[in-house]
C-alpha cells in the first residue's frame, strides 16, 4: 500500500536539520503501523512526506503503486485517497461541522449535495456526534473537534489514513474518545499510519511499531517484541523514559 524507499529530507531554515536520512519502510493493506520516537526524530516529517505536505528531497514514495515524488503525478488525486488527521485538528472555523465534512466531497469528489450530506451524517454518527452537525467547530471540545476531523477525512473514502499525533493537543479526559474512534477504524480494516505518544494504543492496536530517532528508523517490530524485549539500546532508553 505504502512503500518508502531511501527517502531523505533536510530543512535549511531556521537552521540545517537532517530530518530524514535514507528512510525505507513499508505499510501493507489493512495494516496499522504506529511510529514512535522522541520529539525531533523525524516521525512527523515522515508522515507528512507520505502525502507530500513535505516534499522529500530524494528517494521514492509509492502510494498504491503511484510514485508521488514523480513530477508527472497529480498529487491532488493521490491526496484524495489519503486521509490525514492533524494534531491541531485544523477544522475550517467558518464552516459548520456538517459543512466541514461535506465540503471536500463536493469540491473534490464532485458528489451531489444529497449524497455528500448523507455520507456526512453517517460518518458523524460513526464518530458519535450527529447532534453537533449544525454548530461551528469552536463550540466543540477538543475531543469532539478531532472526531469531526476524522469524519472529514473519512468522507473522502480514503484508502489510507495518516494520524499526526492526533491526541497530543487534547485534555487527558478526551484522549479516550478519539482513540476509541481510531480503534474502531482499525478493526474495520483501514490501513493506518499513526504518529503518537500513546503507548497503550500502540500496544493494543498496532500490527507493527516503528521506532525512529535522529531521522532514521532504528527498529521495527511487533508490539510484543517492542515493549517486552527491544533490541536496540536507544529504543530501550526511550521506552524506559516514557513507560
Amino acid at each position, binding site marked *: 500500500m505504502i512503500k518508502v524507499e531511501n527517502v531523505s529530507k533536510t530543512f535549511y531554515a531556521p537552521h540545517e536539520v537532517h530530518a530524514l536520512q535514507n528512510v525505507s519502510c513499508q505499510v501493507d493493506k489493512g495494516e496499522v503501523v504506529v511510529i514512535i520516537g522522541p520529539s525531533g526524530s523525524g516521525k512527523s516529517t515522515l508522515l507528512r512526506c507520505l502525502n507530500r505536505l513535505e516534499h522529500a528531497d530524494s528517494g521514492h514514495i509509492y502510494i498504491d503503486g503511484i510514485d508521488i515524488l514523480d513530477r508527472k503525478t497529480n498529487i491532488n488525486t493521490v*491526496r484524495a485517497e489519503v486521509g490525514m488527521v492533524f494534531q491541531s485538528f485544523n477544522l475550517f472555523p467558518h464552516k459548520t461541522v456538517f459543512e466541514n465534512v461535506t465540503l471536500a466531497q463536493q*469540491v473534490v469528489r464532485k458528489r451531489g449535495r444529497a449524497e455528500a450530506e448523507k455520507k456526512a451524517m453517517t460518518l458523524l454518527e460513526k464518530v458519535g456526534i450527529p447532534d453537533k452537525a449544525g454548530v461551528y467547530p469552536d463550540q466543540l471540545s477538543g475531543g469532539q473537534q478531532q472526531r469531526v476531523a476524522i469524519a472529514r477525512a473519512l468522507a473522502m473514502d480514503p484508502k489510507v489514513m495518516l494520524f499526526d499525533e492526533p491526541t497530543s493537543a487534547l485534555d487527558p479526559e478526551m484522549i479516550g474518545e478519539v482513540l476509541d474512534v481510531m480503534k474502531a477504524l482499525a478493526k474495520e480494516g483501514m490501513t493506518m499510519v499513526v504518529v503518537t505518544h500513546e503507548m497503550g494504543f500502540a500496544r493494543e492496536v498496532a500490527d507493527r511499531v516503528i521506532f525512529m530517532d535522529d531521522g532514521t528508523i532504528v527498529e521495527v517490530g511487533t508490539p510484543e517484541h517492542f515493549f517486552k524485549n527491544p533490541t536496540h539500546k536507544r529504543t530501550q532508553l526511550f521506552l524506559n523514559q516514557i513507560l
Partner: protein
Amino acid sequence: MAQATKQLSRRSYFFWATVFFLGIFSLMALLYFATRKVDYVWRWYRVPQYFYYKDKVEVRSQIEGQVEKIVAGQKANVVVVTGPDGSEEYQIPGKDIRVGEGDYIYPGDILGVHQKWKVGILLQGLWLTLKVSLISIIFGILIGLIVGLARISANPALKWSAITYIELIRGSPLLVQIFIWYFVLGTVINTLLAKNGMAQLPPLWFGVASLAVFAGAYVAEIVRAGIQSIHRGQMEAARSLGMTYPQAMRHVILPQAFRRILPPLAGQFISLIKDSSLLGIIAIRELTKATREVVTTSLQPFELWFVCALLYLVLTFGLSMFVQYLERRTVVS
C-alpha cells in the same frame, strides 16, 4: 472585556461630560467671534440653493403662427400653435401664460414661464464623488485581490510584478500619479484614439483609473496580510483532502481572510473617498471642485467649506457603518 480604565462616579461622569460639551461649544463660539472680528458675515441661508434651487423655465415657440387655443390640461396648460408649416403643442405647467388665443407669434417668442426644482452644483458634486469612489473601490478590490494573490505566489514573474507595482504606487504621491494618468497616459491614449477615428475618453476615466490603481496597491498588501494571517494548518488541511490550491483559496482561506481584512479595508476606502478630492485638478467636478466653484460665485467660503467637510463626513461615516454591518453579518458564532 477587561476594564482598563477606572470607573468614574456618577457625579463626576456628568461633570466631565459637561466639560466636553462646554469645550466644543466654546470652540465654536471662539471661531464665530474671531470671524466677526475680521468682518465676516455668516449667511447660512445662502447655502441651500446650491443643493436644490428653483429655476425659471421659459417655454418658447419653435414655429411661426397663430395661437389656436389654450387648453387647461390636468398637469399643465397646453398651448396649440398653428402656422403655415403645421401645428405644435406646448406644455406649460402653472398659470404664467404670456400669450392669448388668436395672438400671432414668431419663433422664439415666450409662450409662458414656469418654475422647476433643479439639483444644485453641490449635490451634483457629491453624486460625482460618490460615483467615482464606488467605481474605484470596486476596481480597487479586484486589482488588490489579484495582486495580493500574485504577491504570495511562488512564481517569480507574478511575485516580482506584484512587488514592483506595490512599491511604485506606494512610493509616489497620488497627486503625481493623477497627473501621470491624465497628462501622460491620457494624452497618449486619446491621441491614439483620435488617430484611429475613435471617441476620446473623458477625464473621469483617468481619474477613476488613478484612484483604483492607487487603492489597489494598498488593498493588495491588506489582502496579503489577511491571507498570511490564516494559520497554515488550514491550507494543509484543505490540500490534504485533495483540493487544488485555487479550490483551497476559494473555499477555505479567502472566506476566513475576508473577515479579518474588512476593518483595514474600510479604512483604505475611507481614505479613497477623501483622496477623490484631488481629482478636481483634472477637471472632474467632484465635491471639492464644486465647492470651489460655488465659493467663487457666492463669496461665502466659510460656510461652504464647512458644508463640504460635512458632506465628506456623511460619505465616510456611511461607508464605515456599512462595513460594520458587514462585519457583524460575517462573524459567525
